[in-house]
Every structure is written in structure tokens, then in C-alpha cells.
């Protein structure tokens, strides 16, 4: 018997975790002598109070959706892909090559081409640790995190020595040609008569990310592949019995995961920077882990938690800009959210389960449900 109703599991647990994180953050802000209420107001108006703020929030959310989905699909196969950061970096390289060396006639074709390249590069980068895990038993957590460093070093080399235009001091590629520049939400919404901020970086990639959420949902819950991935994630021994190959599932799940992480680059590299710079990912690969945890590896959950983290990012930036709350403290607040929603999940879940048990059987004061011993 499930202890909690579904809605409590999906909505109440993350919500309470979030409130706890917010309360603790408020204490921290109080402790450095600032006003938490004013800070919250500033975050909300900064991130959601204008189309400019929304433009940034959605831009960040797009990044997090891709990396969150990447972590989520791997989770379903019980693989912990910490390498989203490196895969997104490689995706950036794929985007840069596609945009710089192929003369695209229109942005839509460029977007498709760049997305394919980004996915391909990310997928290859994830496929190596996947192969090492499937065939050689090297733990994927270790290898993917190592591959983040290798990716950073590789990108450094490629940018400094190969792709940097002659005479430029900056370790970055040249600007991408005009034809590859993606339309921003401002341009997309103007024909509909909606006035959207011109200077915000949110662009058409946001729609691609939303589509990716939907496609992944179909993949996980409606296809045989998704069925096999989830089966393998729940029980490897049962998967073997059913004739589901662990090697195959490990490879496929990680390739999809890497491709999604890589595809983030169409947002930050192609959509925003319009050239490839060093450290273009800005930690979005790691935020993806928190996003997937909070979203319970469900594409819809990932969608919402990505927007939440987008809000935290943009609101935090505003806070750092307009108050004396230092930038580091913003990181602390984000970390608290990650801590409460991801790592300390059981802290909220257990008392809630107890509460629901009590509601269901009113006369009995209950302890938490334990499986009867063997």
C-alpha cells in the first residue's frame, strides 16, 4: 500500500522542502543584516516582474531543462550521469563547428543542423563512460565526472589553438554568421502582438526544450525502449531474465542523456552568445542534477523545477546587483534549495508519511511503516 496519495508525493514534498530552504535562507539573510522580505520581493520582481526578467528566467530554465532531462533519463536506467557539464561543453563545440563551417540558408535549418551536431557531440562524450561501465565495470559516476575535466581541457585547447581567429586575444571562436542567429522570444511573440523584452536572451530554444520534455515523456512511458530502460533501472536481474541487454540499455540511456545535455548548447552558445567561449556552460550541467532530483526524474517535474531554478538564478543575479548581499550568498541560497529538495528529501518525506498514516487510521498513533522483517 502506498502511504501517501500521489498528489502529496508529487507536490507537497517538494513544496515543503522548498519552504524549508526558503526559511533557512531568510535566516541567513537576516544574519548578515539584510531584510529577507525585501530580498524576496527583489528576487520576484527581478525574475518575474517584467518580460525582461522572464526573458532571463526562461533562458536559464532552458539550459536546466536540457541538463535536467539528461540526468532524468539516465536516472531511469539507474545511471548517475554527473557528466552533463562536460557533455554540454562538447555540445557547444558541435554547435560552433556546425555554425562556423556550414553555410546555412535560414536559422531554422541551422537550428536543426546545430541541434543534431550538439546532440552527437554530447552523445559521443557520454558514450565513452557508458561503454566503460557496460563492458569494463568502471563506475559511471567516477568516469563522467572525470570526463568533465577532460572536456574542459579539450575545449581550452581547441579554442586557444584551433578555433580562435588569428589576432584575437579572447579564447573564443569568431562570431557565428548572421543566418545562424536564432530568433528571441521578442521576435517570436511580436507577430502575436505580445510585447516581449528585446534585450533578454530567451530564444526559440526554449520551445525546443519544452518539446524535448514532451518527447522524453512519450519515450519513457509510452515506448518499448522506455519500458526497457525503466525495467533495467528497477532491477537488473529481472531485466536479464526478460532478455533486456544491460549493455544495450546502458549505452542507449547514456547516449540519449549525453545528447540532451549536449543540446543545451543551442540555447547558450547559438541562441545567446552566438559564439563559443570558454566555460560557456556556467555549471548548468550540475544544476541539472538538482533539477532532475527535484522533478523526480519526470519530464513534467523537470520542466517546473527548471523554471524554479531559472527564477533562482535570475533573482539571485538581481539580488547581487542591487543589494549588498554578496554573490556568494546567492550560491548559498541555491545550494540550500538543492540540499533540501534533493539530498534531504527523506527528512520531509518521513514525517509526511507518518502524518498521512495517522489521518488514514485515526485511532492508532503510528510509527513509520517498516517492512515486516523476514
Amino acid at each position, binding site marked *: *500500500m*502506498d*502511504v501517501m496519495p500521489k498528489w502529496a508525493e508529487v507536490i507537497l514534498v517538494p513544496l515543503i522542502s522548498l519552504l524549508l530552504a526558503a526559511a533557512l535562507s531568510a535566516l541567513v539573510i537576516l544574519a548578515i543584516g539584510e531584510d529577507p522580505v525585501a530580498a524576496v520581493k527583489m528576487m520576484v520582481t527581478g525574475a518575474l516582474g517584467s518580460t525582461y526578467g522572464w526573458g532571463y528566467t526562461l533562458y536559464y530554465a532552458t539550459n536546466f531543462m536540457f541538463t535536467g532531462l539528461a540526468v532524468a533519463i539516465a536516472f531511469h536506467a539507474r545511471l548517475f550521469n554527473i557528466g552533463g557539464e562536460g557533455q554540454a561543453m562538447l555540445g557547444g563545440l558541435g554547435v560552433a563547428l556546425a555554425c562556423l563551417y556550414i553555410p546555412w540558408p535560414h536559422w531554422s535549418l541551422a537550428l536543426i543542423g546545430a541541434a543534431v551536431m550538439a546532440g552527437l557531440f554530447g552523445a559521443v562524450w557520454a558514450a565513452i563512460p557508458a561503454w566503460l561501465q557496460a563492458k569494463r565495470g568502471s563506475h559511471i559516476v567516477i568516469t563522467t565526472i572525470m570526463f568533465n575535466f577532460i572536456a574542459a581541457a579539450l575545449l581550452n585547447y581547441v579554442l586557444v589553438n584551433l578555433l580562435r581567429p588569428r589576432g584575437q586575444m579572447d579564447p573564443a571562436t569568431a562570431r557565428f554568421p548572421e543566418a545562424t542567429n536564432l530568433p528571441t522570444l521578442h521576435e517570436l511573440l511580436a507577430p502575436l502582438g505580445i510585447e516581449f523584452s528585446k534585450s533578454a536572451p530567451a530564444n526559440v530554444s526554449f520551445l525546443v526544450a519544452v518539446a524535448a520534455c514532451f518527447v522524453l515523456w*512519450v519515450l519513457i512511458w*509510452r*515506448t*518499448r525502449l522506455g*519500458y*526497457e530502460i*525503466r*525495467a533495467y533501472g*528497477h*532491477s537488473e*536481474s*529481472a531485466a*536479464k*531474465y*526478460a*532478455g*533486456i*541487454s544491460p549493455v544495450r540499455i546502458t549505452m542507449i540511456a547514456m547516449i540519449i542523456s549525453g545528447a540532451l545535455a549536449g543540446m543545451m548548447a543551442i540555447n547558450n552558445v547559438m541562441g545567446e552568445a552566438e559564439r563559443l567561449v570558454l566555460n560557456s556552460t556556467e555549471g548548468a550541467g550540475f544544476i541539472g542534477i538538482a533539477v532532475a532530483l527535484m522533478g523526480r526524474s519526470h519530464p513534467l517535474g523537470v520542466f517546473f523545477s527548471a523554471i524554479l531554478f531559472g527564477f533562482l538564478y535570475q533573482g539571485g543575479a538581481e539580488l547581487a546587483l542591487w543589494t549588498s548581499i554578496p554573490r556568494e550568498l546567492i550560491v548559498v541560497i541555491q545550494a540550500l534549495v538543492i540540499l533540501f529538495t534533493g539530498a534531504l528529501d527523506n527528512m520531509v518525506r518521513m514525517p509526511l508519511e507518518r502524518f498521512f*498514516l495517522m489521518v*488514514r*487510521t485515526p485511532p*492508532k498513533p*503510528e*510509527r513509520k*511503516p*517498516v517492512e*515486516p*522483517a*523476514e
Partner: protein
Amino acid sequence: MTANDSRGQPETAAPAIELKGISKAFGPVQANKDISIRVMPGTIHGIIGENGAGKSTLMSILYGFYKADAGEIFIAGRKANITDSQAAIAAGIGMVFQHFKLVENFTVLENIILGAEDGWKLRPSLNKARKSLVELAKDYGLNVEPDALVQDIGVGMQQRVEILKALYRQADILILDEPTGVLTPAEADQLFRILGRLRSEGKTIILITHKLREIMEITDTVSVMRRGEMTATVQTAETSPAELAELMVGRKVLLRVDKTPATPGEVVLDVKNLKVVDDKGVERLRGINLNVRAGEVLGIAGVAGNGQSELLEVLGGYQDGTGEVRVNGQLIDLTGKKSDGQSRRARGIAHVPEDRQREGLIMEYQAWENTAFGYHRDPAYKSGILMDNAAIRADTAEKMERFDVRPPNPRLEAKNFSGGNQQKLVLAREIERNPDLLLIGQPTRGVDIGAIEFIHQQIVALRDQGKAILLVSVELEEILALSDRIAVMFDGKIMGERLPDQTDEKELGLLMAGITDTDRDHSVEEVEANLAHAGGDTSKEV
């Protein structure tokens, strides 16, 4: 403080253990309801009941794992407050679990003092334990080799170490949870002799089991549990297996399988010189030869861990092997890409695996998802590139009805079904595919008596439809009841084949211990030595 049951009249001696009105609920599930027992010192008290009847919960309360919601425990007439296992040990209660809690690469002696060391120096504790081990061996006939590594001794020996552990901690009350599950009949007899000796030395023993035969053989009194309640406590001498079964299930049950003689047809499965080497390089199957004909059940008897699992795995397609295996005359691949569960199913082989929770089902999947498991690439379950979930659910609802799976809700997760109903789900999935050959391992492990009856009937019905059935079970009674031929496995080999009406448990028991000259009399020590030599249990060898 609701001691509802107050037959407070003092007897000649206080009961060794008395439970009064114990209740325990897990959420909406009442695992124990107002349970009272009294066990007199120097007796063996059986507790029998189906899976999920609340036996283990009750013992967990007695051993301090759970706290009862209501009720009291008295040890030797004094009220005891057992808050954890330390308190239980201090009160003189020792527990021998179904799954031993031994450190495999420690010696027997080291295992015995583990958690009962005096001080930080190991040597004095070991010396003290060695001395008392000699005494215990003398008093109770519990002979063990103190310096042997636990991984090197047989399962029966390991169980003896568990008993010694409890006695070393001065236990007066021993609780044994399903102690014979992993033993050969000979080892079980030996265990019962030890228990008898312990009883005559004044120890009190509580034996938890679901086997009626054991209750009848060894206990003085027996309590029957059903759905969390104690339905009866009777003197063993005054009851019968049929009565106990009825008390357990709540209705009359058929204890034997009704079947007509088999009419075997063509050979469906033909196995020649089948070998399996595991990842550690140990040869698990050493040249198996057998065949199964259409319309017959071949039963494979043997102590767990003698290669039966590997036999099912290699035939089921998820273990590599060498040799020749033909199904309906056609050779099947034993390694490589064409050797997996999917291709076996395509060849008409269905497989009910030994462990439904680890292999047969995904516990987090709903019943309908489990019904597609292994057959999820069936075109009937497909619509376009997607799975046709509605079709699978409809199919599942039908199968659940035909196999009487309760509750008949395709959307319930597998983990929420009882053991028997989980097994019926697996059986429904495999049998309804109309296979030529059914591999079936431990069909009734952890399944309640009512469901056992149903499952046995299904197996016999499938045989009567002319299907070939390879049955693996560690329950000799089950093998004898269902099989048309019996092959006994020991140490990766077939020791011999017998016909069920021309053999008995004793002969099969010797074969299971690797002794082929079954006419001679054999001492228990000889059997044990043989078993220990073969490793006895799974994956002990390196």
C-alpha cells in the same frame, strides 16, 4: 496495560515466555491482533501460519525489532521490557534467522564472539569462547570445528554456529525462523535431534515454520496464526496435519495433488553435456544430460546451490553455457546475441524463475506492465511505434481473472500483491503464452497453502495439455507430488533419475548429498562431510 486474558492461576512453574494481548499495526494493516501465548520451559512450541500471517512480526516484537502497540511480555514470570535486540539477549532470548547473520570470511570462533567480546583484546575472548564451545558441544552434541572459516562449512554447520552463538550468549529461549528451508532431509533430521537434546536440557524452543510435517514431528504444542490472529493453540499429539492446514487457511485444503498417470510423447527438451562456468571460473554445471518429453513433468531435486539455478538460467537464456540443447529437435544457441530471454520465448520456452521478486517481476511495475514483461516486444502489444498500454491492461485483466489473482486490479504495483498472487501473476503470464516447454523454479516458495493448491493444479493441467515441464524445487514433497520422473542434482551433476512411486525421501536425500550407493546405511556425519565438500550453498567457492 490491557491484559485481556487473565487466567492468572499460578501453575507449578512459570511459563518461560508469556505474551499477553500483543497487537501491532503497520498503518492500516493489523499484523498482530491481541495475541497471547504461553510457552512452558523445556518444551518446543511451534508457530505455524501462512506467509503474511504475522509470525515474523510477532517474533520481531519478541526480539525487540518492533515495539508492540499493546500487550505485555513476561519472561520466566517477570514482566520484560524488550526495547531492542540487546534487551532480548539480556532476557535470555536467542534468535536464529532464516538468513544467517554470519561473517563468511571469519572463523566459527570469531563469529561466535562477534558482538560479545570482553574488552578490547581479542585473544582472551577467543580463548574463553573456545573453552565454552567445548562444553556446549559436550552438553548438546553441537560439534563444530572452531577454526574453520564459515564460508568453508556447509549450511547445516552454519546453522549450528548460529545456534551456538545464541547459546554462548546464555540464551534459555531459542527462536528458529524457518530453520529447515535450506537443509537436506538428513540435515533437518540432525537439526531436530539437536533441538530435542536442547529441550531435554531444559531450553525452551519456539519453531516458526510453514511445514506441517515439522510441526508434527518435533513440537509439543503448536499455535496457528491466520491474518494476524492466533486461531488456535493445541497439543501437537492431539491434532493432525489436515486440521492444522484447515486452521491456517480457514477452509479445507487438499494436501495432495490429484493427477492421472502421464502419457509422455515426443522429446521436447534434450540436453547433452551442458556445462556452465560462472564469472569466478567455478564450474557450476558439469555436464548435464537430461530430456523432458511432451506431457510429462521432470522434477529436479537437490539442495539449493547445486547448480539448479544455473540450469534454469542457461535454459532461460541469461547465462552462457556450452553443450548441446535441443528444443523440438532444433539446436538452440547457448552464448552470443541469439541467446537471451527474448529468443528463448520465441522458441516456445516459457520460464517461471526461482525468484519472482528479483527476476520474475519488477516490483515497482504495475500488474499490467509485469504481464508484458519479457513479451513487451509482442506485436499484439504495439500500436505504431508506441506500446499499446490499453491492450496490455485489457489482456492483464483477463489473465488475472483466469488465474484468480487478487485483488484483480491491473494498476496495482507488483509489490502490493501477496507472495501467492505475485506468483500467480508470473504463472499467468508464462502459461497463457501456450509454451511447448515450461521451466519452473520453486513454484510455491513463500506461497500460502491455498495458492499452492491452485498452482499445483495449473502445472498438472499444463502437463495434461501435452506440454513439457521442467520443475526445479528444493521442497522434496513438491517434487514427489508433481513429478513423473525425478532427477537429483548434486554439485553440478545429475546423480541419478528415479520414478516417484519407486523412491522415497530417504533415498532422494542421500542422492541430494551426493551418495549414490543408496542401499547402504549412512551416518549423518558422512552426509555432512559430503555436503560441506561440495560447498553446499551458492557462491561460497572462490
